[in-house]
């Protein structure tokens, strides 16, 4: 048992408990300091994660693994948590909600996601998934006197419980067929005994459970309502970190435990990927609320990332990782801009963005950069990520020609998506404004937005370090 392998998670949990303690001592007017304490405290888990980088160790009876894949995801979650906390400070200060518990729960959710990226045993996977989900249910319902927030929390809880049941059922079937809960042992048992119908049923149920987590069609129906009702920084957190954590699990479970059953799940992810990106993009066109628009857009992006699983090669996996990082930075940037707008104007309607470029030039520019990056327009990160992922899937098509169709579907979808992203940009720059009153932005939001946009541009212009890190991480699964 090597406790130091858990240092990043333990330091996050300690930080969360310290925050709750400090919360009791702080007078009401100094509560926003809690956000800055949480932010500075993130240095510890980040430092420990960097310290563990380069190791490849398994501990806790095979339940925990620290490898480059886990490190990649852990750093991604920490970046997301830092930006979410920074963009929450102003948002949370204005609402009648307990701030200490808010930041503590964000940190605890982050530690749960980091555990999800590191677990290698079905029981630990289930518990860490449930730990993360329950924390996020609470955060979604955090604005108690707001009906939409309560509705979001309740819907998320009920559908999440349903998906957990499917996941557990699949895990039980898998255990019944293979006699083990450790992913590598499941793989060797499946390799020896062959794939029977119950094993296929088990992996399908597990895919359903994870499908809810990453909001793939047809398990996506919770996403728009939850994204709309939850506090906006939590929506941002859900749409990037929670989704990436789900992908970390899907990757590890399917590319290790179910690798012998590859021929059953490759077509499954092909279909899921195609319908997810198509439905997400088509429904996004008609949205009038920008949070719902980004909800459907995030469903579509999950569809693009799933292409990597339909190909299941080292190249496609590193493509997924680069895409997830680019998407995290870009989507967070877009959400931070939306937080900046809604805390001043109090609206999420796209019509209210008319003429925003004259009222808040910097915010409009940042939002435009992020939306164009989501659409995949150079020189932003979204462009590089799309090219890299699509090219990797295209390469994999040499052995599996059906993937050519998937790449074509993805390209068509990218073209559709340009329409609704540009529609918002057009509203900001070319539509007449109702008022000329200019909108200010607070310091925290300014820093968060600048950091996210800088990330989008840096990854877009100089992607080599990210690609190298992703390639090393992908080698864990496909040596």
């Amino acid at each position, binding site marked *: 048992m090597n406790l130091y392998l858990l240092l990043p998670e333990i330091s996050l*949990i300690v930080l969360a408990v310290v925050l709750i303690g400090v919360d009791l001592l702080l007078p009401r007017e100094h509560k926003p300091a809690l956000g800055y304490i949480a932010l500075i405290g993130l240095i510890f888990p980040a430092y420990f994660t960097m310290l563990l980088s380069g190791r490849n160790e398994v501990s806790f009876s095979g339940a925990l693994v620290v490898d480059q894949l886990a490190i990649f995801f852990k750093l991604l979650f920490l970046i997301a948590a830092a930006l979410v906390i920074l963009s929450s400070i102003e948002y949370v200060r204005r609402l009648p*909600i*307990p701030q200490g518990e808010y930041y503590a729960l964000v940190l605890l959710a982050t530690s749960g996601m980091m555990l999800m990226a590191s677990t290698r045993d079905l029981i630990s996977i289930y518990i860490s998934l449930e730990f993360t989900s329950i924390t996020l249910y609470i955060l979604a319902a955090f604005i108690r006197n707001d009906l939409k927030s309560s509705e979001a929390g309740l819907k998320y809880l009920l559908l999440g419980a349903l998906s957990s049941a499917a996941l557990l059922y699949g895990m039980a079937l898998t255990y019944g067929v293979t006699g083990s809960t450790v992913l590598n042992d499941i793989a060797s048992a499946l390799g020896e005994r062959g794939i029977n119908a119950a094993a296929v049923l088990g992996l399908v149920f597990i895919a359903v459970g994870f499908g809810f987590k990453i909001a793939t069609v047809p398990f996506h129906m919770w996403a728009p309502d939850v994204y709309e009702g939850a506090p906006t920084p939590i929506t941002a957190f859900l749409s990037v970190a929670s989704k990436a954590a789900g992908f970390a699990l899907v990757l590890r479970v399917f590319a290790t435990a179910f690798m012998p059953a590859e021929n059953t799940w490759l077509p499954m992810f092909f279909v899921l990927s195609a319908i997810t990106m198509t439905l997400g993009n088509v429904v996004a066109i008609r949205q009038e609320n920008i949070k719902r628009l980004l909800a459907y857009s995030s469903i579509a992006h999950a569809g693009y990332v799933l292409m990597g699983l339909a190909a299941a090669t080292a190249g496609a996996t590193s493509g997924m990782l680069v895409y997830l990082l680019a998407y995290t930075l870009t989507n967070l940037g877009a959400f931070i801009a939306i937080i900046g707008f809604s805390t001043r104007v109090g609206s999420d309607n796209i019509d209210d963005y008319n003429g925003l470029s004259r009222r808040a030039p910097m915010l409009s520019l940042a939002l435009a950069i992020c939306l164009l990056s989501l659409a995949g327009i150079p020189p932003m990160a979204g462009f590089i990520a799309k090219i890299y992922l699509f090219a990797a899937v295209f390469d994999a098509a040499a052995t599996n020609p059906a993937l050519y169709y998937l790449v074509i579907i993805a390209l068509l979808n990218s073209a559709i998506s340009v329409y609704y992203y540009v529609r918002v940009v057009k509203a900001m720059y070319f539509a007449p404004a109702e008022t000329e009153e200019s909108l200010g932005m607070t310091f925290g939001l300014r820093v968060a937005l600048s950091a996210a946009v800088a990330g989008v541009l840096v990854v877009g212009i100089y992607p080599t370090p990210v690609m190298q890190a992703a390639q090393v991480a992908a080698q864990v699964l496909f040596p």
Partner: protein
Amino acid sequence: MNDPVVILAFAVLAIVMLVSAAAVVLLRNIVHCALFLALSFLSVAGIYILLNAEFLAAVQILIYAGAVMILLLFAIMLTQRAGAIAENPPNNQVGMAAVVAVALFGLLALVLSGTSWLTGAPAATQPNTEALGRALFEYYVLPFEIASVLLLVAMIGAIVIARED
């Protein structure tokens, strides 16, 4: 395990468990639903005893049939308002849900009855509480510790969402 008494006991427990679980979903009076849920939990404890897991059976009764049920009944008692008289909310999708449930059951029954399961050695009859404790605190210590943090989160969440301003 092929003792006819064991098979009969299993059949009775399984039927009671499934019928009471169905009653939880289908009955209108929510207090009746809660009581049938307790019955379902008790039959699960019976099945644990059939599997020689006596400690697990005791825990099942203490935690589920005891603590969880009391909590549930208190929640029902404290949240009842005039007008909503102890009713399971009406639902107009029962028909569709029934079709899906029956189809899923058919698929599962078809697949699972034709599967050759990996069966271990028959469970030992000596007390297994110590082995359970060792498994929990040695082999499964990671999920155990994560569960403890999960309980902390649940407590914080309950306080935040339920407290009066």
